């Protein structure tokens, strides 16, 4: 640890702060009229100003910034129309049960308007309260925004919540917006037909950024601001380096390989965070090396790695299982594996022969590590030895794993190939 550059520490903190702040990330993507931000803002604000009801679905793969954009919009609108908005947040993972969802709505409505809330109220009470509130708020020019995260989970069962919400919205003079957020593209198809008929089917699709947007985004995130407390010449130099890195073909290569598997913004941010954390604090500048070292961290192969940690006996068991499967023995259990193991031992006279109880322990380890699994979920009453099992690792991976194992017995590789 040499001397530390205080400016570089500050710059690092700033970058990390940015990467964890979705508002910062999505702000520059939101100015064009085609962006989801301005469309969503128009939809919600028009229902505020024109006193109408709307229901909107935000769809897109996970990590594409649905909630981030939504929060950006809500934040802006709360500033724009200070006390006419109240936001009710529900999450499908927590409130997919209609009863508790309605209760939660009532609770949040009470909170928003400083009313007393009773936990004892029944479903009917709460849903009537909600409708009464919708009406009152409509009369007082107040808009209620219901945000339903994991919308698809609300579309299970009888969908009472959605029905009463959407039905109220088309019978009561209220101004309410229902915003469903879901990563399932077919979320609106899950709705029951009478609920779907009441849903107003505005959809906003969130897609991963394209190449140009990506480039802009990277520049926006990684370059330091000129008008901050950082020394000016430092910032200038830092930005110059970043510009060089971004223009570098090798950097593009790294980013592309990384985004090959998943090109959403969130995925990119995770990588950048790791890379930025590798920043050399002495020099205080990001370098291509940082990105290079960060890349392998995201390209790990957990199955292969877990083979690396196996004992020799466990490898034997895996190989035996593979041999059994190749022999098209579709259903086998520990006992048949032991039989195979014994036959191998008999024919090759290996030095690694262990007692049955030891083998059973090894077998259980493999089960815990999910390299093998039971094929049935039933039969908990059975002993482990008798339940049918399956290999959870492909032959190719197993072969790879054996080859890269530090001291793999040659016999195992031979057995694999046959």
């Amino acid at each position, binding site marked *: 640890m040499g001397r530390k550059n205080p400016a570089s520490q500050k710059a690092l903190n700033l970058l990390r702060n940015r990467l964890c702040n979705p508002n910062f990330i999505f702000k520059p993507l939101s100015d064009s*009229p085609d962006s989801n931000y301005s469309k969503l803002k*128009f*939809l919600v604000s028009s229902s505020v100003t*024109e006193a*109408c*009801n709307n229901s909107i679905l935000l*769809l897109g*793969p*996970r990590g594409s910034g649905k909630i981030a954009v939504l929060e950006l919009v809500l934040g802006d609108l709360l500033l724009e129309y200070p006390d*006419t908005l109240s936001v009710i947040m529900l999450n499908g993972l927590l409130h997919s049960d209609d009863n508790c969802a309605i209760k939660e709505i*009532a609770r949040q*409505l*009470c909170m928003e*308007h*400083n*009313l*007393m*809330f009773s936990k004892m109220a*029944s479903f*009917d009470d*709460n*849903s*009537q*309260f909600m409708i*009464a*509130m919708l009406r*009152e708020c409509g009369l*007082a*020019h*107040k808009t209620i925004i219901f945000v339903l995260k994991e919308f698809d989970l609300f579309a299970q069962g*009888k969908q*009472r919540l959605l*029905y009463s919400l959407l*039905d109220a*919205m*088309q019978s009561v003079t209220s101004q309410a917006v229902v915003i469903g957020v879901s*990563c*399932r*593209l*077919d979320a609106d198809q899950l709705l029951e*037909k009478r609920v*779907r008929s009441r849903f*107003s*089917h505005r*959809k906003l*699709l969130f897609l*991963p950024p394209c190449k140009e947007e990506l480039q802009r985004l990277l520049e926006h995130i990684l370059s330091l601001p000129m008008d901050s407390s950082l020394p000016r010449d430092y910032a200038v130099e830092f930005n110059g380096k970043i510009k060089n890195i971004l223009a570098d073909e090798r950097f593009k290569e790294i980013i592309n390989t990384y*985004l090959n*598997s*998943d*090109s959403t913004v969130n995925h990119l941010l995770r990588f950048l965070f790791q890379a930025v954390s590798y920043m050399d604090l002495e020099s205080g500048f990001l370098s291509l090396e940082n990105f290079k070292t960060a890349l392998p961290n995201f*390209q*790990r*192969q*957990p199955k292969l790695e877990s083979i690396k940690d196996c004992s020799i006996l466990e490898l034997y068991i895996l190989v035996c299982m593979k041999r059994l499967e190749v022999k098209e023995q579709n259903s086998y259990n520990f006992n048949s594996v032991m039989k195979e193991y014994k036959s191998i031992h008999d024919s090759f006279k290996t030095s690694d022969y262990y007692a049955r109880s030891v083998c059973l322990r090894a077998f259980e380890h493999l089960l815990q590590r*999910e390299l093998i*699994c039971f094929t049935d979920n039933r039969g908990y009453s059975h002993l482990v030895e008798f339940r049918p099992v399956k290999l*959870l690792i*492909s032959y190719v*991976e197993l072969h790879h794993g054996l080859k890269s194992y530090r001291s793999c017995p040659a016999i195992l590789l031979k057995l694999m190939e046959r």
Partner: protein
Amino acid sequence: MAETTPKRPYQSPRKQQKQQFSPSISLTPQTPQTLASSGTRRSSRRRSLLEDPTTPEKPFSSIEKPVNDSPKSSNLARNGEGLKQRINLSKEERGETPKSKKNVKDENVKTPRSKRKNDELYSVEVMFSPVSPELSETKKKKREDFFEEKTAVVTRSKAKWRNGKVDDGGKKKKRVYYKKVVYDGGEFELGDDVYVKRREDASSDDEDPEVEECRVCFKAGRSVMIECDDCLGGFHLKCLKPPLKQVPDGDWVCTFCEARKMGKEVELPKPPEGKKRVRTMREKLLSSHLWAAHIQSMWKEVDGNYWCHVRWYMIPEETVSGRQPHNLRRELYRTNDFAHIEMESIIRHCFVKNPKEFSEASNEGDDVFLCEYEYDIHWHSFKRIAEIDNEGDGEDADSDEDWNLCKAADSDTDEDMEYEEEYVKNLQTRPPTAHELAANSRKGRFFGLQKIGTKRIPEHVRCHKPTEIERAKATLLLATLPKSLPCRNKEMEEVTTFIKGAICDDHCLGRCLYIHGVPGTGKTMSVLSVMRNLKSEVEAGSIRPYSFVEVNGLKLASPENIYRVIYEALSGHRVGWKKALQLLNERFSDGKKICKEDDRPCILLIDELDLLVTRNQSVLYNILDWPTKPHSKLIVIGIANTMDLPEKLLPRISSRMGVQRLCFGPYNYQQLQEIISSRLKGIEAFERQAIEFASRKVAAISGDARRALEICRRAAEIADYRIKKLTVNPSSASAGKGLVAMADVEAAIQEMFQAPHIQVMKSSSKLSKIFLTAMVHELYKTGMGETDFEKLAMTVSFICTSNGETFPGWDILLKVGCKLGECRIILCEPGSRHRLQKLQLNFPSDDVAFALKDSKELSWLSKYL
């Protein structure tokens, strides 16, 4: 769940009497009530109306009594009995009121009102202590009552109240309530708006010029006058410079106001020497030298004085936020402030209208005012007055008459029923004293909703002039009820004849109608509009009254709850569903009467009937069995989507329900077109073909009117967005046309009916594309829709190696597959199954081929598609 027939008089005078006490002060800290501002004002209002405003307020003498009382009462409150107690208390107060009023006149000091002012910090129990020994006796009795059943409490306390009143003065005379009073040359009815004198400048109140003077010549005269829309001054047409021949259309602003707007100093013409400028009532009101009020009830006091109960209006200047820029000159606010005033102080009529009436009233004189909002004097907040309120008022007036008629005969039962109403009113008007009540449960009555209201009326609501497209959007809203319901005349006719046939019979046999049709074909709407028509017929007296209960199966927590809801709607009492079933059985099967309105026929509308199907179908059976009973007088209308619901049920149910059916077919495109264009009548926002296109498209898919309306609204929204964004960049402003075009409708339809999977596939990552291609390839190769991860990974690695891509490794590939599964582009088992994971495309392989064929970065993909 709603029950529409007016069962009980709603605005009975007694209730209003109580409302006098409504502006009491809450003890809860968050109450934003400011004694200083509104409190004084209101009290001054009151005091000025009393005969002797110098009523001394005697300090409260018997403190020990409330102190004794309070622990017990708080116990009661905790037991949930506190409320009842409070009601009884208020009854007590009511018993006292007449007396107290006399007291005031006799300069006797024990007015409950003044006491309240002193002792706001004590609990309500304070009310007990003041008066004569008789009352303390009744109090003891009341304590016993608390532990008895609810109904018993009501009746007894009622009885006691009457006793108390008799004790009070020994007078048998009652107040006499009137619907119409001719007083001082003016004829006043319930629901009229009047000017009310303000004590302080009573002198100037006497002059009452019927006709306004011209601002220029200061003579009234017969000739036509025109009103400036800014300063509301009147001008003779001939006095203007230059003189006008006729009243111009639209707004007109006088030259003085125009000049003032330009920033010039303006000197208004001064009245000739010796002549005082006479101000009209309107001017005095708007400069708060007068008050306006709404008459709620009128009566003659025992001593022969006429009193009335009024609801105050306020001018914008009197509110906390003051006059706001969007306030119109003639705007008033209705308040929730009530008072009793003597008829003596009423000057004459004025006319307060809602915005719609106001815009229609062009030539009705000087005393017309606009009132759109209600102002809450406790919370200083505004709220729009719901339109329903007006209808309600109309009904109330009617039922009040009933009340007066039957009052003499048997007021006992009547009062019983009113009890509930009062109870509600009590909750709402009286801020909580002992403990605040929860808002979301009060047995269906919500407490504290009066807190909701804007502190300021947002400006955009009043000042924004909607464009054509915005108006179109507003009329296309599902929530806006159209004036006419086209295309369902035949069905509505049938429903009407069915109901009329059932209830117009002398015996009123029970009947059952099953209505079915796909969503959005106007089933519920038609039935409800039939019921509205019938209600107006009831009011006109051509058919006899009935009770109407509406239940929605999907809004019930469980099917059994329907009994509870029905029973509550019929009787107003809340019981458990088992008890409710028993009571309903008694009523419908055995013909036992619960309350006196039971002989009315009952129409039960059950929406989403299929939700009531339970395992043994007992709920449906019970409900559908009642109409077959001889004395039930029950008519059941069931609405559901499926055509064959009766057939799916047990035969004993379908034989009871399936006889009479009515089908609402899906709308065809002409009908949809008619529905849309009837809503858009007079609004030039849509191209004709656009509407036709939308309705044809919807008719081809579902025939759902909601869909059609939503598509049009969405199209209007898209067009609006396009136009607004274009005007932001002035470069292409000329391109924006004011109409909703075909392209917008097309976009809306796309958005509504198309799954966005193709776009997602197009923009997905490289590996996901390869993954999908491998899926399609696998599908073509094997012909099987389903594959497993192991096979697929082999295919992917083969594809990758033969096209010079690096194979990413199995685990990353698994992750890619799971991501696709999350979006439901493919269907897959959980990733922990790894090699055994089963995969299947969720969309046709052609879609994948279409999406990926011309991908730029991976042109070789098309080989495999």
